[in-house]
């Protein structure tokens, strides 16, 4: 794998997205003026208002089994994160390319397996991977799309340096925060929003519905029945499931609401059974169908895979899509781009060491104090070690773990994640951020300009996951030039109600 020396490391100063050496970057000029002009008390008042707003709407993140309040708020930082349109356009091109390659890879590994036969990716790495679902071999999802909704986690290390940190091809979450954060900003800071030309994100649900409809079985006709399948209210992303379904005007169903008869999926309604054509599922593969995957699943639908195989229902994302976002497969994504598209990758990968390979492992073990070590199967920021921040004991513990199960671990250089100004207890200070844009693939690829910016609230912390105390920011893709035409087209002043009850006689 590539040498780590070319990647900006955490020891070097992080790239500040607002402040360059010679002053404030152009995209942040107005934010800078606003922050200077706004007294701290006012910012604090707005922060409290924001919290109340989120609590009131019920935008919570459910954390069960850890004690404390199970319905937690993800801290929302009121200073938006800004990306210039020109920067975004370059990113978006790269994202499209990457997702096309990921879908091509999925079609291939469940089909002809050409990339494996060509020796570009070790066959065992794919075929013996837990994420690989042999049940999917021979099933061709409509349009060759497996990952209809992909969340690609990006980090920035310099003015022109973006890296893909990881791909999320299964059931990426967080898009509701992208939408609600914007709503919150428009409510809390209408004037600030009006002074910027922010690309709107509000069309996402519509685009998602179009994408889902596009993959419906042909017999469904022009108005297919689309539903969102959730594990239920105890799932951490339940709010998001309801929010998206509501915005799209579709039903949120649980496994028990669906039944399969003769390879056709129905939902139980007050008017009797109703046929279902597309399922936007937000439950993991293993739980989808107890007759095929985990038999103890209580949230799945027995017979669902049979209906899927028969082509009577579409599943988004397709089962088995997880093989494409496996951390051990990740280093090969640039290779996929070259192999399937014949193009050079536009987005860079972070150099990654697979501890299963002897050469890589040797490097990792002798550089534990500089690397981030992650579980190849982990997510949510659990079970990872950030070398430069870890104590000796923790590093030794990871050394033992890697030696015991090398295949379970990967390592990457500790990137100097870019920072954005963030309101913290001591004032306004730079904090590390990442970015998760959402890429939709149906008949075509659609990307709403924006994404979820996660911010590590703790000083120096590089972990942005909400399960680890990370917060979020609204992400503004800002048109570089042109007149100040506000996004929130200020509603024309409507006439006030002119009638009133006449005074009693």
């Amino acid at each position, binding site marked *: 794998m590539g040498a780590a020396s070319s990647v900006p490391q955490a020891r070097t100063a992080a790239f500040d997205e607002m402040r360059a050496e010679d002053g404030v970057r152009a995209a942040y000029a107005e934010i800078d003026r606003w922050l200077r002009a706004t007294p701290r008390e006012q910012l604090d008042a707005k922060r409290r208002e924001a919290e109340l707003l989120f609590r*009131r709407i*019920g935008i919570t993140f459910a954390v069960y089994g850890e004690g404390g309040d199970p319905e937690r708020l993800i801290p929302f930082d009121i200073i938006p994160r800004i990306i210039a349109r020109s920067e975004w356009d370059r990113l978006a091109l790269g994202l499209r390319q990457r997702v096309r390659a990921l879908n091509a890879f999925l079609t291939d590994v469940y089909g002809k397996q050409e990339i494996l036969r060509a020796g570009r990716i070790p066959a065992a790495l794919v075929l013996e991977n837990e994420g690989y679902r042999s049940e999917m071999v021979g099933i061709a999802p409509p349009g060759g799309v497996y990952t209809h909704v992909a969340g690609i986690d990006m980090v920035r290390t310099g003015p022109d340096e973006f890296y893909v940190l990881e791909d999320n091809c299964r059931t990426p979450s967080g898009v509701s925060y992208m939408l609600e954060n914007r709503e919150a900003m428009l409510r809390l800071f209408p004037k600030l929003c009006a002074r910027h030309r922010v690309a709107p994100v509000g069309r996402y649900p519509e685009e998602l519905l179009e994408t889902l409809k596009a993959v419906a079985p042909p017999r469904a006709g022009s108005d297919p029945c689309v539903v969102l399948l959730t594990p239920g*209210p105890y799932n951490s992303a339940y709010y998001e499931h*309801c929010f998206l379904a509501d915005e799209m005007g579709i*039903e949120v169903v649980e496994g028990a609401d669906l039944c399969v008869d003769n390879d056709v999926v129905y*939902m*139980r309604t*007050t*008017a*009797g059974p109703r046929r279902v054509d597309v399922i936007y599922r937000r439950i993991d593969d293993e739980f989808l169908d107890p007759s095929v995957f985990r038999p103890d699943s209580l949230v799945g639908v027995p017979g669902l895979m049979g209906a899927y195989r028969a082509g009577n229902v579409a599943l988004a994302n397709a089962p088995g899509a997880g093989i494409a976002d496996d951390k051990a497969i990740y280093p090969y994504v640039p290779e996929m781009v070259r192999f399937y598209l014949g193009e050079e990758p536009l987005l860079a990968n972070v150099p990654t060491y697979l501890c299963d390979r002897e050469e890589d492992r040797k490097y990792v073990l002798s550089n534990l104090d500089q690397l981030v070590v992650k579980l190849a199967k982990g997510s949510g920021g659990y079970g990872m070690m950030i070398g430069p921040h870890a104590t000796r004991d923790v590093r030794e513990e990871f050394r033992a773990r890697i030696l015991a199960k090398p295949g379970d671990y990967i390592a990457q250089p500790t990137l100097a994640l870019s920072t954005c100004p963030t309101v913290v207890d001591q004032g306004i200070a730079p904090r590390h951020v990442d970015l998760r844009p959402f890429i939709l693939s149906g008949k075509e690829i659609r990307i709403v300009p924006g994404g979820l910016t996660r911010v590590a609230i703790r000083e120096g912390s590089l972990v942005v996951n909400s399960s680890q105390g990370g917060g979020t920011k609204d992400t503004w893709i800002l048109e570089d030039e042109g007149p100040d035409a506000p996004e929130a087209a200020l509603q024309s002043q409507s006439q006030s109600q002119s009638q009133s009850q006449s005074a009693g006689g």
Partner: protein
Amino acid sequence: MLSRTADSLFWLARYTERAGNVARGLGVASRMAAVSARLGAEADEWRSLVTATGGEGAFFRKYEAPTAESVVHWLVFDPDNSSGILPCIEAARRNARAVRTALTVDMWEALNDTWNHLRALPPEAMEGEKLADFLRWVRERVTLFNGAAHDTMLRNEAWRFVHLGTMLERADNTARLLDVKHHLLTAEEEGAVDYVQWQTVLRSVSALRSYQWIYRDRLNPRRIAELIILRPELPRSLMACFAEVAETLEAIALGHGGRRGECHRLAGTLQAQLRYGRIDAILEEGLHAFLTTMIERTAALGGEIDAFYIRH
């Protein structure tokens, strides 16, 4: 509509209505207990409220005697009592959360704010001197929720299941409240205490003023029974509630191309019985027997709705 959604809407409305009814009942009982204390009949007041809310068995397994403390605890906080105010709000909000997409923002916020506020409220703020204020607040919150539903919901199936839940729960509550006081309305002789008790019966369905508006005369047990059972003008009367129940079920059936079941037949029978019933015949047959039948058939109707629309 998804059966589970209909189920949650129905129960969300039932639990909310129940919380309001329990608050109203507790308020009236506290007031009455203050009067009865002088006559040594305080415990009877508390006992009849526990009976009316349907938890007598469970109550006496847990508490020795019905006192102000034990009954308030049972009907406000006790997690073992699914008809207590806190558990009802909790259950209503749980149901609401499961079907948020079917609720309007105003309904959700009315309920979610109530729940958030209750969660943060120390127990002291719901007892003793603070009890009356607390109960009034609960009733206000329920009124706000009902108003939000009434004012903001599309008149579609979601609204119908909410309305069905509210009305069925209200009918059940009225029948139960009246039943625990039936002896007062059928007693041969009348005393000073009875008059206060009659007022209490009317207050517990928010009908003291209504009585005066309709009859313009002194309280009389026969008329009280008639008002609460048969008069369509009183929104909490059995007649008014069952008319709404039958009408709502009919509207749901029309939305499904006329698909009807046992629940429709039962609701229609109940409505007809009340519509064409006469109070003298009911009193002659025996008020208690009549109300017992009503309570049983209300429960049966709930079961039939469930069997036809939810667990088919």
